[in-house]
């Protein structure tokens, strides 16, 4: 589904991602783990087209999207939820969701169906549809950015730290929702610091450190064999 080969990302002289390769198979949920500064978000942004790759290739369903712009990537079927939880604060919930469906804006009926499905998945958003999103709580904003990404009807979803800075009860709900999405057949790449919960929902996982992948395997393998705390704490 999504193939990343020898991908490198640089900020000037600093190499944030050093020639990493991985594959997402259809319907799979893969977790990308690692400490702050390991290069996870740079990898996500680069796949999404918001950062230029300095080397390597990214292909989505056999199509090369390495040099694609962000708008081309989402049209190709890959939606991204960045870690910065970028709602458009002065637009309402409904307007944010409408923009999520921008690439399907001529298919009004399809968008209505999709919105109804999302409203059952996120009842809180339906209640607040006329409210400016700047006034939502952090958890509600996180649900909104995920729902907004789903309005693009992607086949692959990149989720960057959906649990960042949220209360444990809300994190729990976000992970339940991720499981629901996985069951619906969506292919998901989940970046997380919340290792235990990420491994609980993931099929496979890999660990990044200093821009390189240092461990990969099924979720159980990663949990049992690798010493995760050393990757996080730099031991």
């Amino acid at each position, binding site marked *: 589904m999504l193939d990343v080969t020898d991908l490198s990302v640089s900020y000037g002289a600093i190499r944030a991602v050093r020639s990493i390769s991985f594959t997402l198979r259809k319907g799979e949920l893969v977790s990308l783990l690692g400490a702050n500064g390991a290069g996870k978000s740079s990898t996500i942004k680069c796949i999404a*087209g918001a950062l230029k790759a300095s080397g390597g290739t990214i292909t989505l369903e056999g199509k090369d999207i390495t040099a694609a712009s962000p*708008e081309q990537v989402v049209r190709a079927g890959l939606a991204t939820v*960045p870690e910065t939880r*970028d709602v458009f604060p002065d*637009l309402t919930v409904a307007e944010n969701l409408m*923009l999520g469906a*921008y*690439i399907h804006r001529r298919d009004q009926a399809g968008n209505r169906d999709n919105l109804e499905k999302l409203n059952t998945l996120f009842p809180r958003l339906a209640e607040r549809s006329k409210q400016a999103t700047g006034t939502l709580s952090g958890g509600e904003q996180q649900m909104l950015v995920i729902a907004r990404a789903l309005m693009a009807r992607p086949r692959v979803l990149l989720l960057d730290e959906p649990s960042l800075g949220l209360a444990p009860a809300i994190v729990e709900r976000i992970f339940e929702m991720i499981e629901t999405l996985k069951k619906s057949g969506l292919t998901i790449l989940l970046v997380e610091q919340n290792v235990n919960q990420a491994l609980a929902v993931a099929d496979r996982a890999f660990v990044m450190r200093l821009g390189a992948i240092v461990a990969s395997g099924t979720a159980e393998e990663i949990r049992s064999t690798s010493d995760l705390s050393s990757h996080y704490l730099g031991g």
Partner: protein
Amino acid sequence: MAFAIQFVIDVLSLGGAYALMALGLVIIYGILRLVNFAYGELIMVAGYTMFLASGSGLPWIVMAVLAVGMAILFGIITDYAAFRPVRAKSVTAVLITSFAFSNLLQNAALLFISPRPRNVPLPDIFSQTVSIGGAITPVRNLITIAASLVLLAGVAFLMRRTTLGIAMRAAATNFTMARMLGVPANLIISSAFALSGFLAGVVGILWIGRIGTVVPGIGLEPLLVAFIATVIGGMRSLPGAVVGGFLLALIDTTLNYTLSQDLLKFRDAFTFSLVILILLWRPDGLIKGPASGQRT
């Protein structure tokens, strides 16, 4: 009473023109975080289109539509010539290219038309006056008020109710995120330039309607007015630009009425002093735009 009516009409007609000018500038600034210094030249383009069309025998309204169309066209050309090639590379480069494009248009007018003022055809109604409650008012002031109300309502509708408008507002808060939802960057920017050109074209006709002639440097004052109005109102807020425009018109008109003949030539000094006071009180302008906002 007559005095009060006259004062209100003066403020509203000047303010309407200022508000439209400011809106045209802030629409670009909101999205690109860059001031389009070639904005005043769009007004010049509208004026010279009217002048060049004056011999054609077309009805005035057709000439006016043509002038607005040329301003839109030159707005889009500004994007392609001055912004798009260097947009992603450096802010300084865009500042210089937009200045250069402004200079290029002005000098083209100097070279190919004339440095001297040229008459612009105006319908008779622009020079007529009416009496409202005892106040003698030029009809063009009422036309300006009506046109600005219609356009402000039109822009508000576009920005609030249409997908394109909402996408433009989203792009003004977080351009990269808007692109990650599939909103095409180039379409949004070109639309902003077209809208900016449209506003400049209409304002140009109303503005030149006050003077009756067009010169190559005619765009400087509207650019300055628009810039000050957006600074007062808040650089990133569309309602702010409108409020700033009306407030600046209120200040200018009040000074026009109250200053003695000797002091009137220093009017701009008084205006700017007040602007400084406003900025000391509200450094971000009267209305703060949406939070966040990396330049992209």
